[in-house]
């Protein structure tokens, strides 16, 4: 697994999304087009992210995508 792919997978485990709402400017962008700053997905639902982490722990996916520095 290439490192960039590991990083994308890690983002999903950290935020619930491969492309996260990780800057205020993205929230501003949403507001500028007339929709709520935080969408109704995992970006506003920390319990959803927790569920993804539990799944990854159960399947061992969290270990598969762990960075090399963490494995050592």
């Amino acid at each position, binding site marked *: *697994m*290439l490192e*960039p*792919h590991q990083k*994308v*997978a890690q983002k*999903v485990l950290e935020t*619930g*999304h*491969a*492309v*996260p*709402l990780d800057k205020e400017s*993205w929230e501003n*962008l*949403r507001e*500028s*087009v*007339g*929709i709520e700053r935080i*969408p*109704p*997905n*995992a*970006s506003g*639902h920390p*319990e*959803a*992210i927790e*569920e*993804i982490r*539990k*799944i*990854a722990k*159960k*399947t061992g*996916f969290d270990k*598969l*995508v762990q960075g090399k520095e963490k494995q050592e």
Partner: protein
Amino acid sequence: MAKKSFYHFLGCIIPHRYPSVERAVKLVFKDLDMQLLDMEGATCCPAPGVFGSFDRVTWATIAARNLTIAEAGGHPVTTGCNGCFASLWDANYELKHDEELREAVNENLAVIDREFKGTIEVWHYVDALYSHVGLEKIQSRVTRPFKGVRMALHPGCHWMRPKILKQKDDSERPHIFRELCETSGAEYVPYKDELICCGAGGAVRTADLKIALGFTKQKFDSLNEAGGADMMITPCPFCELQLDAGQVEIQKLFDEEYNLDILHVVELLALAFGHEPDEFGLTTHLQYMQRKSEPNWQRLGIEAKA
């Protein structure tokens, strides 16, 4: 008659990078008397290239978790992303047909008190519009026809493939996406590489941006060889990102300049239905933000507000 309702699966790129698509689809579905319901707590689909390629059971479990949100409400899902559609439709199909996979997935879902039941269907915006509304009704809603505007298409890969299983359209001779786009009144421009990947999919953009952009460049060159177009329409935000922001990246990496407006099909329909670009934020596309530019209003046949 009750409105047809769909759970709206946003995915990642539409709500977090191209919110104009999220706003546009709400306008279009409302105009066509269809209801979009929020899917509270939905996560990444998950990305089929990264998750599906490395761990099928984890991929299917996370997709199934998303599907359980819709199952609980009893309505089908719709999404405007080819990648999300690939994960959700494929997982839904595989889980309904592969008992061993379903058992493994439900064992994983049990740790979060969920269960995949297989009670709902997944629709792309394209086939929700084509099958549930119909071209005639869509066409009747058009008040700003794109008369004389030359339109190239990029259907992308996943919404109609694998064709034997999905049975949505003929992936090698597709017509549904074209017919949907043609309701806008724009003139379809064929080009040789219309059906190749935008370059982003299959986790290629993540692994090697330059290789990914090589595909994008090939598409643009193929279109230019065919005489060019005034705009390109896609049904996928990841393709949209690659084709839109990709033009800025190509300029940096290959020192070649392309200036083509890239629209998601629901943005095209919103405009054709008479909505103003400002109503859904057409100018917020990353290409325009990064280049500090605007859509080519004249070529699109739209009068921009001063």
